[in-house]
């Protein structure tokens, strides 16, 4: 899903950079006031883990491949603001060191994978947990992660669709192509996120009790007392 230089129109590049810079500022300010000491090691591990996970390209539809994003796990476990910073670290280093994602498309790539792919799962899970009062938690984790991946793909498709002078397919082709193909990855993302969140709830309730999406759940509060 990493967009290289040359795919996006200048307008789309500039607008996505502006939106991303606003989210970076908010994320740094919010993280500075909320990141707990216990979350520091897990933030390092998860960032390294999903950088590595993005190196695996799974065959999906029609000879294409896709990779996990990790945004759902980062957003749900660390919270969306720290999750955004984690994904930004991955995307910046991928762009600068490996040429994976263009520097002019960095704003768009962070917006897709580090903001939409992180914030949507985190806030969707929070809302679903409030409605269900914590029942069927892992099912909601799966749905939130799946939705985050598809939303990120739709956003990337929309950015390509709006870059008509460069990318002539337009919205009607770019958005469905990205959404359909990446929904397959969304299922894998959902399962991985579910397994990771489930394991950490059992093994590290102290860390999960700091997650804004999970901290109010009885299961987290009980296991951390």
């Amino acid at each position, binding site marked *: 899903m990493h967009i290289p230089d040359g*795919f996006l129109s200048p307008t789309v590049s500039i607008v996505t950079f502006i939106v991303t810079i606003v989210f970076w500022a908010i994320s740094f300010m919010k993280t500075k006031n909320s990141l707990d000491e216990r979350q520091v090691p897990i933030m390092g591990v998860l960032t390294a883990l999903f950088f590595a996970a993005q*190196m695996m390209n799974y065959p999906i*539809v029609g000879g*294409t491949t896709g990779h996990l994003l990790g945004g759902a796990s980062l957003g749900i476990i660390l919270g969306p603001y720290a999750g955004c910073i984690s994904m930004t*670290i991955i995307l910046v280093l991928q762009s600068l060191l*490996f040429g994976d994602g263009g*520097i002019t498309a960095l704003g768009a790539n962070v917006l897709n994978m580090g903001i939409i792919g992180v914030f949507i799962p985190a806030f969707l899970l929070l809302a679903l947990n409030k409605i269900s009062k914590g029942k069927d938690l892992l099912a909601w984790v799966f749905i939130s992660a799946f939705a985050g991946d598809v939303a990120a793909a739709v956003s*990337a498709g929309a950015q390509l669709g709006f870059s008509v002078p460069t990318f002539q397919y337009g919205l009607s082709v770019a958005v469905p192509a990205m959404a359909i193909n990446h929904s397959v990855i969304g299922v894998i993302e959902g399962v991985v996120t579910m397994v990771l969140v489930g394991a950490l709830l059992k093994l590290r309730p102290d860390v999960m009790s700091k997650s804004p999406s999970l901290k109010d759940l009885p299961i987290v509060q009980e296991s951390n007392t």
Partner: protein
Amino acid sequence: MTKINRESIKNLDRNTLIVGLAVAVIFVVIGNLVFAYAMETLDVKAEELEVTGENILNAPFPEYVIPGFENEWGGILLGVVATLAIFAVTLGIANLLKKKKE
């Protein structure tokens, strides 16, 4: 239930680091040996339109390979070093950002 004390948290952190980084290394190995081929949807669509995505910056390790050492073992070595570097960078940033003790 017993309250988790500081010593047990340190042990849990150490176990989390060991397991998490070991899994990351396994991902790097599998990514280089099994799931290395990449042809993403947007690359296919770009090829159909004959749009070329040339990056402006010359990355030192394009396509996740060490120049002059373009095989899967070079990729694994680079992937492991990069994973550990990202871990260290993130720990540094997270330590700067964490809540200060009152």
